[in-house]
């Protein structure tokens, strides 16, 4: 069933593919369908296409449409450092047809540090998709091969080790700041354009250490090109089970990054619930789980509104603490 209201030209291109390949909006009539109507739902993602968030959003779009009773489009809006995407969702009619998918950098860190039209509380998290575990890694032939090596060398020669990470204050930078506060070590912070550039710097020997998310370096670790030395999480990563957490090494620093789906808070409680339900139903299907496994997207323990709200509150407090501490420096 294709609605005639194509919101974008580009959507029309995929229409033919969609109709042949899948999306037979079945008789799975649910609350979602009656509450949401037949207009398409847009998942706004404040990042460029092709990254981890994008893949996850597209897995949702491909699987949850059937349960939400309407087509789901993924819209990538990386403009203004992601702020344009948030603005778009905030300005949309509060009918649940424009929702946001983002990690905490966009909704919490940037909202706290920049002049925005909304507060952190204006974002209502409805689905808790997964937790990303920031991981520190080095080139396989580098003298540093463990958390202990790193701390020791950094203490002996402060401000000589070059540490590559994506944007300042992003989820692959804040854990480093926390660890430096905890231990007193000092590194040279080298911002990169993202995970890809960080990896080039490490493999090419331009930077000594880097931080990224586990799925993106699994292949390099298995081939023995890089060594992952530590994970900033409460538990080890599923895809890198041999890599210890910083807590195991005796440093009480853990900073997992929840990936959440949000509506703006003006959307009614019933619609929030209906959206949460149909997205979760879609992600429980076998197809969704297979896609998630292949992409290492970690969608095997998706949680609903309660968990999402709780983790959002906790993460907000953490970020506030770190930002306050940075301010004091």
């Amino acid at each position, binding site marked *: 069933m294709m609605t005639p209201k194509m919101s974008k030209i580009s959507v029309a291109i995929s229409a033919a593919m969609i109709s042949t390949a899948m999306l037979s909006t079945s008789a799975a009539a649910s609350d979602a369908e009656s509450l949401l109507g037949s207009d398409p739902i847009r998942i706004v993602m404040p990042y460029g*296409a*092709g990254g981890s968030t994008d893949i996850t959003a597209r897995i949702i779009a491909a699987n949850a449409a059937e349960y939400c009773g309407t087509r789901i489009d993924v819209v990538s809006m990386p*403009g*203004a450092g992601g702020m344009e995407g948030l603005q778009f969702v905030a300005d949309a009619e509060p009918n649940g047809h424009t929702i946001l998918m983002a990690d905490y950098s966009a909704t919490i860190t940037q909202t706290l540090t920049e002049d925005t039209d909304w507060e952190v509380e204006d974002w209502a998290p409805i689905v808790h998709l997964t937790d990303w575990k920031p991981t520190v890694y080095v080139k396989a032939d580098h003298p540093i091969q463990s958390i202990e090596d790193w701390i020791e060398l950094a203490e002996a020669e402060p401000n000589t080790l070059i540490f590559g990470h994506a944007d300042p204050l992003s989820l692959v930078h804040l854990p480093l700041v926390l660890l430096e506060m905890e231990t007193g070590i000092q590194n040279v912070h080298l911002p990169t354009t993202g995970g890809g550039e960080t990896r080039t710097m490490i493999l090419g020997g331009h930077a000594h250490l880097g931080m990224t998310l586990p799925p993106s370096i699994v292949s390099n670790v298995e081939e023995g*090109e890089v060594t992952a030395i530590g994970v900033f999480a409460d538990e080890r990563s599923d895809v890198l089970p041999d890599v210890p957490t910083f807590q195991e090494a005796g440093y009480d620093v853990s900073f997992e990054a929840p990936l959440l789906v949000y509506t703006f808070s003006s959307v009614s409680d019933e619609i929030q619930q209906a959206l949460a339900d149909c997205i979760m139903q879609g992600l429980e299907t076998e197809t969704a789980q297979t896609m998630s496994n292949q*992409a290492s997207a970690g969608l095997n323990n998706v949680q609903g509104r309660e968990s999402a709200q709780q983790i959002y509150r906790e993460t907000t407090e953490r970020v506030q603490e770190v930002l306050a501490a940075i301010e004091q420096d």
Partner: protein
Amino acid sequence: MLDLVIEASALAFHPYVLMYVMLGVLLGITLGAIPGLSGDMAIALLLPFVFFLEPAMAMGLLVGIYKGGLFGGSIAAISFGVPGTPGAAATSIDGYQAKLKGKPSKALHTALYSSVIGDTTSDLVLIFIAVPLAAVALSFGPIEFFALYAFSLMLIAALSQGMVAKGLAVAAIGILLAMIGRDPITGSARLTFGMPGLSGGLSLIPVLIGIFAISEVVVQGAKLWRRKVDKLMDDVAEQASLLQGYDIRKDQLSWVEFKSTLKATYIGAAVGTFIGALPGAGQSLAAFMSYGLAQRFSRKPEEFGKGSLEGIASAESGNSATAGSTFIPLFAFGIPGSATAALFGAAFILMGMTPGPSLLNDNTEIIYALFFTLIFANLVNLVLGKVLLPYYSRIAMIQPGYLIPAVFILAIVGTYAANNSVVDVWVLLFAGVLGVTLRLLKFPLAPLVLGFIIGPGAERALRQSMIMGGGDWWVLVSSPIAIGFYVAAVVLILLFTFALRAKK
């Protein structure tokens, strides 16, 4: 080995796969030709569906779209002066001039042939020498990248002969425009004058289309208007223009002309392949660098910028030659070197293949099949392009009265669609005003765009180098590769200066 080749070709030349490749190329050419829409966009939309297709078919479709899109960008660049994709910006310099002289078919055919030659070269490099080239690419850190950017800026800023000072000046304006937005190192907003919409910086597409296309539309519109007014005043019959008398039979690319563009095509193929393998450098830089070098080595450098077929060939071949080599860092290390490579990386992941060093070992058959598909898609591109070009040439010669509003609407819709951003549309209009102003003051536009394209990369590389060197400027010449680029820049400039003097 022979078994492998047979199995892989059975996969790659399955009728369905061939059909998907053709569908992809057709889709790619069409999307690439529409400003603002690109092959990348279609690839992103189709990502979830690759999961449901056989890997060989999915690859065929995506490869087809990608390659078609790379060539398609040149169609709008030549026909309307609107680069359909950022990579086609350099093509529009000479391509649009050639069209204005009534030679759209020659220009489009030159673009097609050079695009296919460049692309095929790059694919062969990917297939046969990916590993050593990947190792070279890795040795490019911030210090080496800054030298590369400085080299290309030197090369291009002096593009417009007799206007070196003006060229440098507009390149500086381009860099300044690129600095609007977030500081790459501290992340704080700068030069935004308190407007939150500018905090992410100006996007490439609206600046590009605004500077080239909107300003052109305004100039053409003004010309048309003045002609009408003249007619009203003097009642003089309008001269039969080139447009009314367009005869495609007189506008065929001859063998001699084709041969004359080959040197430029080879320069583009070499430069594009190399730049494509460097993570983060990009198609636009490849096209502009090829253009600059081809001009330096051309027998008729004075024709560049005035509709030179060599200019078209070098830019288009440089642009398309990034197609194969952009996969080198992805296959060798799992590093996506470009937006397209990132999307292909995502597609591999969804098909259960992890990009990176183990990709080839774990999926030998399918990757070899992909290699076949890459080459086959070039053939499809050539044939389809050949069939479609006569029609595109005629479209290019539509009367300006219809064309101007159409281009204007395309530019606005395309700009909005690229990032779903209203701010971008405003940027487009302002860039258009800037473009008109610069044209009136007789400034060249190409160096501005190049400055804008390499500005962010150059600044980031410079500041990253300074962080790594602890604030010591000598760090910039601490790498042999970097020193090589600086020396090459100086030598090229000296050679060119002497060559000019000798001519006088």
